[in-house]
């Protein structure tokens, strides 16, 4: 292939053949000689002191390896932002399912019984389970005020707008926990050798997060901890931070036993113990002029972080910054807070706070439209951000985005007006009500604010002895197409064939730290770095006279081979440097929050069945501007998959909590969409480009998680004339609301009769 033909074409997925033939190796597919299996003894109560642990009868405990907190060589914590989360609770438990002890045995069938036979006596302490209780500080369970982090974002003088507002519109919106539900459960294998150190293989997103956590836990230097990512069966943020915990557990058992130890969670353990999307509550109070212009507003955004801080401050930050959405706010005050409850810590999940705050905003825009007497289309059009205007953090929109045009195209693609007219007729009769809903939004790509500068990611590209080029990054593949797209970028940069470029397995002993695979940053940030490193290879070959100014792929391969023979290995590194036009004030929370934004307008078309109160999404249009699309099939796959997860977030996926513990921890009763539940999801792209991303790319992975839930709830309100402001929205809630609306006295009477 020649220049210009690889970027933008749907080349075969690098690891695709292994995946469709069943040859791809996931952690549970790996077996080491003499390997033990590990299991975790967990807290059964939400909060209390551990009085006594006893090992019950009927088990030959001599056969088991048992690890308790006193076996931890370094610090008893899972190092992340703060070190507040213990690896094994030592004397005090703060949430159900908190790890207490570890067991290992060669026969995995013996483990469940052994776990069951460990009994723990507690002195229970009062626990708190809601954001309200946490804010009320009836119990202090974390720090001095149960608050992990708070932010204040201010723009203009919002206090002066209320007096001349024609309308003041208020609303409160909530979202529930959501499970990532990767189909491959979490798992790790660890091996320890006193001379060589520790090696772990696992299902994970961020090799260097695990590396950092293991160094601190085990008291080992960097070169004696090695983390290798196996093929990973889905992650969605759910394998960002918790894998460090499982790796730590496997490592402790391996260190104590001197044998390889494998820990694989089953689905119930994975659902009950690992992270979920943060539940949220957003309150809006907005001043609006009579022509529908937002004058200013106050936004209060609160997240339930669970029992330990983990990633909550960062999730909160992204949620808060996105809470003003794709609109121009002359003035705004955003107060954001993440609070502690006695539930397992909530964590990263695709969208990372933005789906929560954008759900609130996009529902609120429909409420504003009703107050002012404008259509949902018109209220958005009048308030869209325009190039040259500033976001809530004061970031100037430099991209030539025309959201009004994007909206028009989405309406046209969805047949909005034609359908609306038809629905108005159909809704006059029958047992079904239909409606249309819109969401317009943005999603910032890459780490927030100075995040990328702090990360200082490094990537490598090397020329191999066989003439091929190999990419060295810790960025991981877990379905999105990381391997494929990074190889496309290098092939395009060097004028090589796609087949001439390979990528190393993420292994901290082999690859530099290109940062975590999160925040829609891989193609935009890591891709750009990989491009510079690749150019370094070409430059070296040229300077050394081994390659002419123009060359064929064969000549390039020959030059690589010659270099390795004559001079040895050729490897170039590239390190992230913050572009000059990106400045962020961490103290005031002002400036360029993101290097680029992706923009989108989504339109949902729903039917509510008035017999079952079931909502079906009949058609879904997802139109977005994501910079240059590097691989159409993968990009479309990201959008469809994200929309599907977001439909689950809106309508199906409800975590039922009882004293901080998930009660429906099985796939049989935590319901995600099946192939029979989803509408046709129609994906369209606009491609404006982006100076900061490789070949004009922006982030794409998280964007589709943001818009569907509000678009669907807006459509339900359009169908029923009843507003719902909380998700997941299940049929029973729709039934209850409609029953109340149509005949409140009947409902009361029937309840009385029941008694």
């Amino acid at each position: 292939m020649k220049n210009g033909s690889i970027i933008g074409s749907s080349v075969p997925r690098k690891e695709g053949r292994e995946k469709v033939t069943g040859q791809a190796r996931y952690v549970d597919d790996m077996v080491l000689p003499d390997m033990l299996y590990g299991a975790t003894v967990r807290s059964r109560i939400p909060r209390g002191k551990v009085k006594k642990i006893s090992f019950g009868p009927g088990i030959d405990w001599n056969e088991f390896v048992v690890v308790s907190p006193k076996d931890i060589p370094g610090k008893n914590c899972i190092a992340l932002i703060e070190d507040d989360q213990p690896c094994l609770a030592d004397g005090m438990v703060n949430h159900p399912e908190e790890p207490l002890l570890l067991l290992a045995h060669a026969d995995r069938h013996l483990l469940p019984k052994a776990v069951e036979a460990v009994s723990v006596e507690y002195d229970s302490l009062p626990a708190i389970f809601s954001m309200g209780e946490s804010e009320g500080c009836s119990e202090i369970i974390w720090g001095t005020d149960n608050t992990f982090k708070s932010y204040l974002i201010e723009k203009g003088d919002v206090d002066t707008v209320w007096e001349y507002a024609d309308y003041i519109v208020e609303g409160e919106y909530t979202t529930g926990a959501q499970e990532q539900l990767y189909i491959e459960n979490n798992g790790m294998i660890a091996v320890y050798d006193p001379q060589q150190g520790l090696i772990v293989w696992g299902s994970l997103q961020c090799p260097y997060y695990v590396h950092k956590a293991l160094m601190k836990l085990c008291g080992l230097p960097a070169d004696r901890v090695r983390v290798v990512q196996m093929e990973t069966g889905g992650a969605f943020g759910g394998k960002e931070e918790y894998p460090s915990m499982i790796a730590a557990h496997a490592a402790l058992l391996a260190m104590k036993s001197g044998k390889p130890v494998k820990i694989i969670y089953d689905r119930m353990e994975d659902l009950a113990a690992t992270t979920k999307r943060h539940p949220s509550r957003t309150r809006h109070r907005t001043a609006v002029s009579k022509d529908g212009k937002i004058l200013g507003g106050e936004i209060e955004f609160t997240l339930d972080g669970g029992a330990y801080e983990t990633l909550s401050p960062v999730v909160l930050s992204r949620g808060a910054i996105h809470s003003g959405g794709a609109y121009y706010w002359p003035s705004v005050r955003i107060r954001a807070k993440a609070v502690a409850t006695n539930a397992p810590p909530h964590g990263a999940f695709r969208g990372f706070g933005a789906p929560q705050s954008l759900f609130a905003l996009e529902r609120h825009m429909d409420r504003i439209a009703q107050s002012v007497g404008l259509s949902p289309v018109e209220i958005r059009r009048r308030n869209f951000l325009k190039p040259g205007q500033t976001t809530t953090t004061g970031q100037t929109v430099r991209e030539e985005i025309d959201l009004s045009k994007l909206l028009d195209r989405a309406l046209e693609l969805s047949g909005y007006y034609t359908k609306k007219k038809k629905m108005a007729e159909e809704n006059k009769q029958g047992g079904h009500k239909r409606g249309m809903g819109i969401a317009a939004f943005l999603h910032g790509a890459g780490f927030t604010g100075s995040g990328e500068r702090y990360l200082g990611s490094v990537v490598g590209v090397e020329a191999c002895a066989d003439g091929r080029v190999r990419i060295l990054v810790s960025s991981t593949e877990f379905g999105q197409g990381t391997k494929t797209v990074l190889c496309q970028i290098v092939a395009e940069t060097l004028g090589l064939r796609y087949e001439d470029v390979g990528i190393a397995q993420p292994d901290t002993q082999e690859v530099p730290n290109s940062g975590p695979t999160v925040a829609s940053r891989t193609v935009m940030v890591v891709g750009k770095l990989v491009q510079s490193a690749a150019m370094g290879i070409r430059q070296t070959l040229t300077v050394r006279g081994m390659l002419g100014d123009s060359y064929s792929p064969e000549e390039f391969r020959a030059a690589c081979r010659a270099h390795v023979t004559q001079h040895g290995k050729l490897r170039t590194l590239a390190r992230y440097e913050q572009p000059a036009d990106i400045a962020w004030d961490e103290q005031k929370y002002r400036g360029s929050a993101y290097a680029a934004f992706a923009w989108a307008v989504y339109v949902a078309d729903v039917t509510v069945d008035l017999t079952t109160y079931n909502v079906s999404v009949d058609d879904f249009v997802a139109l977005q501007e994501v910079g240059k699309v590097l691989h159409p099939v993968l990009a479309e796959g990201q959008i469809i998959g994200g929309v599907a997860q977001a439909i689950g977030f809106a309508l199906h996926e409800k975590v039922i909590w009882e004293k901080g513990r998930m009660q429906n921890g099985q796939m049989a009763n935590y319901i995600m969409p099946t192939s029979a539940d989803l509408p046709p999801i129609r994906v369209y792209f606009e491609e404006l480009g982006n100076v900061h991303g490789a070949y004009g790319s922006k982030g794409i992975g998280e964007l589709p998680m943001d818009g569907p839930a509000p678009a669907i709830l807006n459509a339900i309100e359009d169908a029923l004339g009843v507003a719902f402001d909380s998700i997941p929205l299940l049929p029973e809630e729709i039934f209850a609301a409609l029953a109340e609306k149509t005949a409140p006295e009947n409902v009361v009477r029937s309840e009385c009769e029941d008694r």
Partner: protein
Amino acid sequence: MSESPQDRAKCEISLTVNGQLATVRVHAMERLLDVLRHEFALTGTKEGCGEGECGSCSILMDGILVNSCLIPVLQASGANVVTIEGLASDGQLQALQQAFLDCGGAQCGICTPGMILAAFHLLSKKPQPTVEEIREGLSGNLCRCTGYMQIFEAVREASRRGAKT
């Protein structure tokens, strides 16, 4: 501890897996999923939920699509089992495998073996399925990555190319 499978005597069970007749010594109540993965080292069959909800462990047993996590190995005695490893022959991808690659039907890959076997089963009964039949035929196999649309497209594409059973 009399309930645990390892406490019971092992027995010999013969079954045909991907065309090869084999005899294994296993506990009669072990899950076929575990026997395939551990005794036959056929790790292409995946565990997702262990309760027959997700379909990741789908295989064909005597031509019927089953969740191997719900089948005690005793039940597979004398059966003809096909796993994902039995689909490609001589390194040549089966039409569905190629179509999954071309259309983006596989992302993280963990549901892919079961999904392809479910699709294979569907096409063996209905070589030219409608979209509704595809939706229905694959509804026992959960995928969290793709939102299914590109999987439907892969099945349609394989059907067009004439996937033979």
